[in-house]
């Protein structure tokens, strides 16, 4: 089943075109890596998919589970199962991490017509998930991302993903700012969340992450469009030859 289908997507930020005719098909159960140099449009793609303000789609369409994604408000996308792992997770002073996460879970459950989780059941669930991710339990009671180290913030994003159980997860540079051990752990945690009903898009600069989280497909984004796609081998070649090499490859036809 196709989870996400992006066709000829053009988007601009502050009047400046960034995505210029991007095509991408991602099936359920697949992990796709999107790589590319700074300024190629990777984070813009993540923002447009999640519905962040400040980006204007000028052409093209995005179908999520066969339905128009771009017409939905950000919270509706989230409730429908779209999760964005933030490159820079945001601090919310005074709001306990578990409280925030429970509010999110219950907003999604309510949308699905399911009963809300009571605080005790929820706490047990989160503790179990946090333990599986190697997150210290005291992070759960602290304000959202406040005073967290870079690694803790990223792990906290993956904790949220594991609790919210999205159908489509977009992880925007989840590996940035992580040391090698943290990287291995976070990648391993995401690997553990692979599921036949879930698609994962990993946006990254570095091939390193993909050693632990082996993608089904690798795409190279450059100048706002996908210039080449391949399997895990492409990431290794990129690491060897650099992005300039990829940008010079003959472009694949629009899928």
């Amino acid at each position, binding site marked *: 089943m196709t989870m996400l289908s992006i066709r000829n997507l053009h988007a601009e930020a502050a009047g400046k075109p960034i995505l210029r005719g991007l095509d991408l098909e991602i099936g359920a159960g697949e992990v796709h890596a999107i790589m590319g140099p700074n300024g190629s449009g990777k984070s813009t793609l993540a923002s447009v998919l*999640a*519905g962040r303000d400040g980006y204007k789609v000028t052409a093209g369409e995005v179908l999520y589970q066969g339905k128009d994604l771009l017409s939905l408000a*950000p*919270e509706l996308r*989230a409730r429908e199962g779209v999760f964005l792992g933030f490159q820079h997770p*945001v601090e919310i*002073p*005074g709001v306990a991490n578990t409280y925030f996460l429970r509010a999110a879970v219950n907003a999604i459950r309510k949308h699905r017509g399911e009963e809300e989780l009571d605080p005790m059941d929820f706490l047990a669930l989160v503790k179990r998930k946090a333990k599986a991710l190697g997150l210290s339990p005291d992070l759960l009671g602290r304000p959202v991302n406040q005073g967290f180290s870079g690694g803790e913030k990223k792990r906290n994003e993956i904790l949220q993903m594991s609790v919210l159980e999205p159908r489509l997860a977009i992880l925007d540079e989840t590996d940035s700012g992580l040391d090698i051990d943290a990287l291995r752990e976070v990648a391993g945690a995401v690997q553990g969340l692979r599921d036949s009903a879930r698609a994962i898009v990993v946006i990254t600069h570095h091939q390193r992450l993909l050693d632990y989280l082996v993608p089904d497909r690798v795409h190279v984004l450059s100048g706002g469009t996908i210039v080449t796609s391949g399997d895990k081998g492409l990431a290794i070649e990129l690491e060897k030859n650099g992005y300039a090499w990829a940008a010079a490859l003959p472009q694949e036809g629009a899928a």
Partner: protein
Amino acid sequence: MAQTIDLQQLTQREYPYGFTTEIEADTAPRGLDENVIRLISAKKEEPEFLLEWRLRAYRHWLTLTEPRWPNVRYDPIDYQNIIYYSAPKAKGAGPKSLDEVDPALRGMFDKLGISLAEQERLSGVALDAVVDSVSVATSFKSKLGELGIIFCSFSEAAKDHPDLVRRYLGSVVPATDNFFAALNSAVFSDGSFCYIPKGVRCPMELSTYFRINAADTGQFERTLIIAEPGSYVSYLEGCTAPRRDNNQLHAAVVEIYAHDDAEVKYSTVQNWYPGDRNGKGGIYNFVTKRGKCAGKNSKISWTQVETGSAITWKYPSVMLIGDGSVGEFYSVAVTNHYQQADTGTKMIHVGKNTKSTIVSKGISAGHGQNTYRGLVRVTGGATGARNYSQCDSLLIGDDCGAHTVPYLDVRNTSSQVEHEASTSRISEDQLFYCRQRGLGTEDAVNLIVNGYCKEVFRHLPMEFAVEAQKLLGVSLEGSVG
């Protein structure tokens, strides 16, 4: 007097919801003079000393002018166009049923989860018997009586406990204190009286909510709380339900007197009618609240959540006289639409090793204007005094304002005074983060604002805190997007 607001006209125009203002025979003539004060005192069958006290206050009030220093704007008030005494409303004066109550008001009741019976009481629906609250109040009263705690209306106290009233009335806020306090002293209608005997720890929170007719104490309310040595009481004023009143001007006075080792915690949720979205109508809430830590190691703590009123003017203060006494002020003040608030505190350090803490959280949305005004004074004898102040402002939208006006007056070199202030906005990033996790915009604002206020809410009694959180959400509805 062309600019003068005709209060009567204005209030009638603002209440198209079936709140009637029929004038009954038992009402003083419009305006204020000594005869009106004599009438009030006579109607309430007050002891002679109280009448004299009122008259002295009135004569002093005549020499005062209305303060213009607060950072609020309103048209001049015509004090001769107010009715200062009106007998308690007869049955049948209010709306006949909840169906006659403003649907917007009812919607707010529902959102705050207020029971139907309570909705009827609060919106003044005429009932033959106020079922729940009477029985609750009566059982409370007998339990308190066993401990020697007095908790009654001010009028009852004046009749039944004149010595206490005589000794403490005006001992914290003198009748001559300021324009509005003097006016209140001259004409106060009723209010609450609370006395905790020596060594008694009041086993329950005392709430005006449970005192019968608390909602009808009128526009010039007077509260007096006395804590004898070693006693403790937690006192709750107001409730989260919206309160409408036909009187636009409210000038209340609250006095707290704490003896050695006594502790008084005073929590307020103020949700008077704030006026409509365009700033029309709403209550002017000009309140003088002050506590005196007279005894050593006594403690007075004010916690307030101010979401209502068109204009709020209040500075709950503590005079730290006794050595080692402690004063605290925790405040959340919200101004949305065209609301204006000029609020803060005064901490006056007189005794040695006195301590005060100020945490103020202002939230401005819409065209709201929010001013924190606070004074920390350390007198020459207050050796070892310490103060910590934190004043934060949160802005929602571009048309609102936040102002911080701290006054420090330190005359003792051994004291330690710290002041921190911040102004922030709810960031787009925070909102987007919440929405990306599935929260709607209003829920997201609510969550962020409640997080911001957490330091204050944790000083409220548990149930009150939960209600205050909900109230904050309702007050800020429509402030974003």
